[in-house]
């Protein structure tokens, strides 16, 4: 059992879910302890992944077992610098979210724990899968527990929100399935055998016209998940209705899968399309930044405000992603972690007052700083992280993203469209302060106007325990991000190089064909790097 950590990572939640399923409904305490325990073991296993050496690109802990051989479907998993931190984020947030849930979830403990374990399985599976079919299976697997969590343990309009969430996500992912099958079929035509293995499929170069359609199908699935403006309207509903734990996981991890899908699948497989459509998506990301900030500002429901702030933050991540350079992509990955931590913590904090007051309306609060000083401290710190104050995690991510988009290689120095997009995105920094401080002002400052707020109790031990790791992460990433960046940078560098080569190869061809990119990249390196490899279109025959 030296390297099977990823299988353990998937097996533990699956096995635990089975155990929970078999345990009688009435063993509440045992189920609570067992599920949290399983998730903590999971966290420890995932920390083992961090210890590996990521100083060069490529997947670690790869396991490859044939599954359905006739269709080339295999169980293939692995992590690299890009997925590593997302895996850790998942294993960190899952126990926290579940633990924090015990404050408000009093019925259906068994089903809730079961859903969470399955959810964790789905998320981890999607992050480590290197086989498109396997990825799709996990991708859809995530939907069901989340649907149940919102639909059963949610608020008043939970069914509407759950169905909306489900259908929205489903529409996108079905198109993605079609695109996956098309890619596999094209590969089969050339290579003579089916495969869903991402690395094998990567050698396929499709003509640009096909790439656009396929990328569109993938992008729709991922953009809905992100969610990118204008596909975001499921998010506020889902967040508002979901229980605290559900919101935390939804915001912290599920949204990241959209971006992850872009990096891992859509961009390498369809480089020409991503290069052409990418700026448009980045532009929509910028629209999302500003639009989300505007919409967040006028919300009266705190949870909705945080939900719209997610739209705004995810816009930053899209912008960084499609800047197509190391700063932008590393920044986007780091910002995914940051957003997971800070928005996850914000949802936890919203849950804290909701548990006490059963209201999330800004108007119902005011002056809480007087009665809940520790809560105020935690909230303000997380707020600062969310608006990207230097020294907290949010700043590093936003800074790298903005630097990436400003220095986008696509634009060779300062391209006017990227320059303007960066300008607009940077105004998001202003608006973030506006809407978050607006919320802080309404909740914490001023006099206590509602007498029922006077008797509110400060954070209890469980809440502090669930928030403290996140606060630690806020400052850790804020002050020493190098630890995280060093692990992802080699992978990101390789990704950018690989993408560029793929882009030029893809632009060169009119017919589908197979290219040995590894060999090509070696040849390019031997010839003196990418600048030499840049093709001057086709030579006249």
């Amino acid at each position, binding site marked *: 059992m030296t390297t099977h950590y990823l299988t353990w990572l998937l097996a533990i939640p699956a096995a635990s879910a089975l155990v929970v399923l078999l345990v009688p409904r009435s063993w509440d305490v045992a189920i609570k302890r067992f599920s949290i325990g399983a998730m903590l073991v999971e966290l420890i296993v995932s920390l083992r992944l961090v210890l590996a050496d990521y100083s060069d690109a490529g997947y670690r802990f790869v396991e490859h077992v044939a599954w359905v051989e006739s269709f080339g479907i295999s169980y293939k998993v692995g992590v690299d610098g890009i997925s590593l931190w997302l895996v850790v984020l998942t294993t960190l947030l899952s126990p926290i979210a579940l633990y924090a849930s015990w404050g408000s979830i009093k019925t259906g403990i068994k089903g809730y724990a079961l859903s969470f374990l399955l959810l964790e399985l789905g998320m981890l599976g999607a992050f480590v899968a290197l086989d498109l079919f396997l990825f799709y299976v996990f991708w859809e697997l995530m939907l069901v527990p989340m649907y149940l969590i919102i639909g059963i343990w949610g608020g008043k309009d939970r069914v509407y929100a759950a169905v909306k969430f489900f259908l929205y996500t489903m529409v996108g992912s079905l198109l993605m399935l079609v695109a996956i099958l098309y890619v596999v079929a094209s590969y089969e035509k050339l290579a003579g055998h089916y495969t869903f293995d991402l690395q094998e499929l990567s050698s396929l170069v499709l003509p640009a016209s096909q790439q656009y359609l396929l990328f569109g199908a993938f992008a729709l699935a991922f953009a809905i998940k992100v969610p990118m403006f204008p596909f975001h*309207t499921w998010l506020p509903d889902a967040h508002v209705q979901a229980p605290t734990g559900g919101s935390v996981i939804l915001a912290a991890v599920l949204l990241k899968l959209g971006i992850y899908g872009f990096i891992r699948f859509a961009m390498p497989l369809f480089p020409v399309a991503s290069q052409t459509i990418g700026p448009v998506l980045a532009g929509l990301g910028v629209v999302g930044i500003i*639009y989300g900030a505007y919409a967040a500002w006028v919300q009266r429901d705190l949870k909705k405000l945080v939900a719209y702030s997610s739209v705004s933050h995810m816009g930053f991540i899209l912008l960084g992603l499609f800047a197509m350079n190391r700063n932008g992509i590393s920044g986007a990955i780091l910002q995914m972690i940051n957003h997971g931590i800070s928005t996850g913590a914000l949802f936890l904090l919203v849950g804290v007052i909701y548990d006490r007051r059963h209201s999330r309306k800004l108007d119902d609060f005011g002056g809480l700083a007087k009665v809940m000083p520790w809560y105020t401290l935690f909230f303000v710190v997380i707020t600062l992280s969310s608006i990207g104050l230097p020294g907290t995690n949010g700043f590093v991510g936003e800074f790298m993203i903005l*630097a990436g988009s400003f220095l986008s290689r696509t634009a060779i120095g300062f391209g006017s469209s990227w320059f303007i997009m960066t300008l607009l995105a940077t105004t998001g920094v202003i608006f973030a302060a506006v809407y978050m401080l607006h919320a802080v002002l309404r909740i914490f400052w001023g006099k206590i106007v509602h007498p029922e707020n006077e008797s509110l109790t400060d954070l209890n031990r469980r809440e502090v325990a669930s928030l403290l790791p996140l606060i630690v992460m806020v400052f850790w990433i804020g002050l020493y991000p190098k630890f995280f960046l060093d692990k992802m940078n080699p992978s990101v560098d390789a990704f950018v190089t690989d993408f560029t080569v793929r882009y030029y190869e893809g632009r060169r061809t009119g017919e589908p064909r197979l290219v040995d990119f590894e060999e090509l990249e070696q040849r390019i390196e031997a010839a003196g790097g990418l600048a030499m490899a840049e093709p001057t279109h086709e030579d006249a025959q």
Partner: protein
Amino acid sequence: MHVEAPQQILLLLIILFPLGGAIINGLLGRYMAKGLVTLVGVGSVALSFALAVVSFVELYGLRHESETATLVYHFYEWFSLKLPSGNVVAVNVRFVMDSLSGVMTLIVTGVGGLIHLYSIGYMGDDEGYPRFMSFLNLFMASMLILVLGSSMPVMFVGWEGVGLCSYLLIGFWFENRDYAAAGRKAFVVNRIGDFGVLIGMFILVGVAGSFEFADINSAAMAGEFRPDFPVWLLGVAPSLATVACVFLFLGCTGKSAQIPLYIWLPDAMAGPTPVSALIHAATMVTAGVYLCCRLSPLFITSDVAMSIIAVTGTLTALLAASIAVVQREMKKILAYSTVSQLGFMFAAVGVGAFAAGFFHVFTHAFFKACLFLGAGSVMHAVHAHGDADIFKLGGLRKALPITRLTFLASCLAIAGFPLTSGFFSKDEILLGAAAQIFRPDDMLMTSVGWFTLIGLTLAAVMTAFYMFRLYFLTFTGEYRSADQSGDHPYDAHPHESPPAMTIPLVVLAVGALTVGFLGLPHVVPIIGTHLSDYSWWGHWMEASVAGQPVPEQMYIVNLASGLAFGAMAIGISAAWVLYRNKSTDALAEKMPARLYQLAFDKWRVDELYAATIVNPIKNVAVVAGRADMTFVDAVMTKLPSFNVREAGRILARLQNGVVHVYGAVVVVGVVAVLAWFWTPHSRIEAAFEGTRVELTTPQGLGYEYRWDANSDGEFETQWKGTPGTTFEYGHDDMRGIAVFLKNTHSGIEHRIDVTDEWMPLPIESVVPAEFLSPRDTGFEVRIDGEFLLFRKAHARTKLSGMKEIRLPMGKSGRLGPARVSSRPLVEATLEVRNAFGNTRRATKEIALPFGFEAPTHASLTRPAHEVVR
């Protein structure tokens, strides 16, 4: 690269002490004794000050060995960026003390320490005392990071950190929601400035390839910022330096309260008075000036940016002074005075007198801190909360002797009374402005110089006037709240403040009177003696601050000091006449009422911003918030779901439940399938392998095939069950030539019909016109036998030497972004038969991707243009 001096751990400790104090007091202060809180809060800053002095002395010593000596502490690498060039720029947490940051560190820790001390007395009874100390300490730490940080991002940490502390301290009494809102306003307005700093930072790193101030400055001196900014902006082509400086200056206007972002500073007086003194007068607000001085070699490369700064500074000085003249409340007057003085500093920066501007920062820290603390002492004495109305005070000279003397000293300094610190610094600024006037052959800078000089002189008159108006109304005459009448009477029996408050006042007042001698002018006015050797300040700053040369011509020197002295004299005399021992606002009676009211309402700038910027944005936000749940959600969610539901409703009608109808539909389906299979179906596909053409068609169930590959009426193959065949076409099989245009990028391909007459080649049909440059368009094409001929329309063929291009059949070539290929056409015929015995023929025209060897025995029998379709 920099000379690697030994690590100066002291620099780190200077920052860590206050930071530690902030953390201890912030987390545990609530549970600690007050004395311990004081010890931690004040002690940490005192230690920090001590270390700063030690470091400064060390730096001073090093300066004798090397002019550019600096103290450096490299802490760790924060993160790194990769530039498009491939270079990796490490963002280091690295601290540098050079002559500029050394002085600033001393100001921050020294003045800050005094204000901490003062706070013991002023805030000691507040229940949030530990919190207050914690925030103050955090502020010190942030400010020190701002000052000592060696690169833009590290400085930015402090830059935003002080903004945060400002937010927290303005809203310190958070139970008053207006105060908290003032804090928020400060933060948001500062963020607008931070936006500028961020963008400026990106431009700097993009050009200089480094975040380090030293590298940026050397790049600026090497002229790397001179090229035009590559993005087309509003029809003008500013240089890189101009754009970068304008964005950075936007940040400075936010932090240092200049037009247009000064509006937060007056509101910031909601915070406790020590905060006003420390943050909003002495240290944080001067960060903008500090940044400009830090990057002075960059700023000085852009005349346009410098002019903008000078004009903005002058206008701010005038505007704020004009507001201060009519205000009634102590702290408000001081706040506008601060804005106005900051305007002076920026005007100095704008005219290239960086050292003078920074000297004003230095002196201003003393007298303005002293003034604020004095105001606090007065408020403490009369138990005024928030602010004190000077028309309800008066005659306090008896009750508050120490406060009064120190206040007077500071008033003299700020008014520029000879030999006080303000006299020297203001004089240097006016001298810098005057120098611009006499710069030869530069219309822009000359006019800026005139504007600055006149504007600043006017502002100086007003400064002297409103300061002494404040002094006279507060300390002379009779105490107007003694009779306990009026709306909110102050305490009837004011008393002097405790020593913890008066000691800082005295120290600061002494500083306000004396520190000016550090910056004696180069040339003494009127007498004309050269004092260069004694001008410690200018010499000290030379190492880290660039600037225009200080003029030494007597007429300039005399002009500047004459104006400065005159302004001071006029201002103080006017105040003496109007306000000494008076109790009413004489100015209000003398000025037109509406003008007075307008000035009193701060020229209604806040209202203007609210009407033109804030409210429109807010309205957009409201609309966005509403539209999201109505319009966007309707389009993205409700509309599709409505469509599905309605389509379902229509289709549901078909489910009428009558079994026979279902059966009948089945029969219709069966018939349709039968009809399809009745005749065979096929289509021809061609694949090319060398010169052989593989003809295929999809295999059908029970089909048989035979091919006539060249469509000459004779079938080459017999009926057989396998669909494909291969064929090698010959020249005789050719039916004509087809021309294809292809977008090499997207793969889009169009067939073009060409005759043997010249016709334009429609490249736009495959490449969007926006992507075409003039040299890619305007081709003409025709067929000549077996060749395609191309030429440039309106070609200056003889001049450019461009001839007609001949493209042989089967070949392709590039024309700009498109590829054009000439391909021979052949036609294939296929006959298919199915199990029912029905047959069908399919023919297809195939464009071959290769040409033919022209047959030796004959050429084409017909002219090419007749066969081209």
